[in-house]
């Protein structure tokens, strides 16, 4: 894992503390993500992993705020930006996909139009350019018949298709970081694997840095090279995936790994990681 203070990292959290009305929810955690790297944040619900990734997007829920430490995106401090300042960062530098992808798409607008909206509004492309570009990028994510999919409404598509659409939208402005908050949790097991493949493939092709948040060690292990284990808003263990999974130091990590051993987590470890 990169040193939190190392310069040149794409995303750096230093002593990040997030508080709600009833006290601290995340207690001074630090991590860093290199260009093209893949960081997994693992923890049970309530561990603060979702809040952490929301703070990276400036979308903490009302009443919850960053109260200590800092967040840097590409060496720019984004800890306390206004909505207007965030506008220039969201989408263009950092994209995001979420659990239950259908709910993150507007139910009243065909999905293709939601993709072209980003291209038109944020990239200033003309109406004629965008529709071909939209179909192309939907097709690139392995969606079959993208010209038909782009005309459909979210309620007409399956979870796996919706997550691909959401990924296409998140990447439309070519951000260098993609935050994926439980991207596969609501999906069938086979579709889960497909979506993770898509993420792994994108990392390679686009040199995209990924922060993957999940409660599921196996999911994280499939994509990420580094892992941070969160519990009760604190980092209990952090390091390269192979080390954390192969030689867990903390009792909680061991518990997570043991639970997974039964389901054959080794399967998800790529050979080079297993050797490391």
């Amino acid at each position, binding site marked *: 894992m990169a040193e939190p203070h190392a310069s040149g990292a794409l995303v750096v959290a230093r002593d990040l503390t997030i508080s709600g009305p009833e006290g601290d929810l995340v207690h001074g955690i630090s991590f860093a993500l290199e260009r093209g790297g893949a960081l997994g944040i693992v923890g049970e619900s309530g561990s603060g992993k979702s809040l952490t990734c929301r703070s990276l997007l400036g979308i903490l829920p009302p009443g919850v705020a960053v109260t200590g430490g800092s967040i840097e995106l590409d060496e720019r401090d984004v800890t306390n930006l206004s909505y207007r300042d965030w506008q220039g960062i969201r989408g263009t530098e950092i994209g995001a996909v979420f659990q239950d992808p259908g709910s993150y798409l507007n139910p009243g607008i065909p999905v293709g139009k939601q993709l072209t909206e980003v291209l038109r509004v944020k990239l200033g492309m003309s109406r004629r350019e965008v529709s071909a570009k939209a179909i192309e990028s939907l097709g690139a994510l392995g969606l079959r018949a993208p010209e038909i999919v782009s005309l459909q409404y979210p309620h007409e598509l399956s*979870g796996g298709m919706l997550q691909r659409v959401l990924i296409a939208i998140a990447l439309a402005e070519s951000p260098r970081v993609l935050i994926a908050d439980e991207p596969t949790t*609501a*999906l*069938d097991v086979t579709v889960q694997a497909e979506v993770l493949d898509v993420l792994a493939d994108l990392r390679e092709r686009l040199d995209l840095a990924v922060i993957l948040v999940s409660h599921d060690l196996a999911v994280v292990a499939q994509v990420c090279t580094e892992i941070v284990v969160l519990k009760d808003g604190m980092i209990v263990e952090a390091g390269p995936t192979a080390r954390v999974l192969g030689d867990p130091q903390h009792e909680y990590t061991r518990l997570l790994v043991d639970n997974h051993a039964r389901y054959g987590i080794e399967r998800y470890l790529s050979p080079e990681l297993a050797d490391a």
Partner: protein
Amino acid sequence: MFRRAIRSPLGATSAAIIAVVVVLSVLGPLIAPYDPLAQDAAHILASPSAAHWLGTDYVGRDVLSRLLDGSPLSLLSAAEAVGIAFALGVTPGLLSVYLGRVFEWISLRVIDALITLPFLVFAIAMTALLGNGLQQAMFAVGILIAPAFYRVTRAAALSAAGSQYVEAARLAGASPLWVLRTHLWGKVAPSVAVTTANSMAAGLVIVSSLTFLGIGVQPPAPTWGGILADDLGYLFQQPFGPLYPTIIIMVIVGALNGFADALRDTSGITGHVRLLGRRRSRPRRSAAINPALEVTNG
């Protein structure tokens, strides 16, 4: 349900006002200081004084006495309308969820049709054509308020009927009546209570609108709307005249709506209704032959 609503500040205030108005109405004719019909040529359009707290009207009748005497009629008429609406709305609303598609479709169309009828014109027509009395008027108003009860009951029953514990109870072989009593009524009752309070407020406004127009009551008998209409003619001589019945109507209507809001807030009801067609009448889930299949498709 009511206890929680009354504990909120809004609910407590509203309930207190409603209680005071009801008590005053019951005692109204008894505690009225004067005969509401007694004219006093010496004191016409008098301003409020110790003798006449709210002054007198254009023939010297005591305004306070007339308001007190008129209140039982206004409240009872509104209550009658709401009672009729309740009876006509709640039962079909519950049945529409259970008696199958045909009854559901027919009842929905009947309700849609009732909603398209303009309230006041219909009430006036019914009153005038079926004999000029407030009873007929309130029957008409009751029929026209019934759709609100139907829709609210149906919406609440639908959402409860789609919930898993009801499905589980039904799969376990519970009788519809038992499900209704133990599971559904608790869900439906808060919505119906809110609608009752709101309808009561609407009913009062309609009663006063009708009596304001002189429909349903014979002239000398005092009603809130009638007093208002009378005083309006003497606006230049006694500008405060129309104020009193207005304030009474506003306060009681506000209290009823406030109580409805308090009930709604404390029992966590959401949702809205809509005229002419609506989303799928049942959750699609119930269409699945085997519920287990649906679960795996997530």
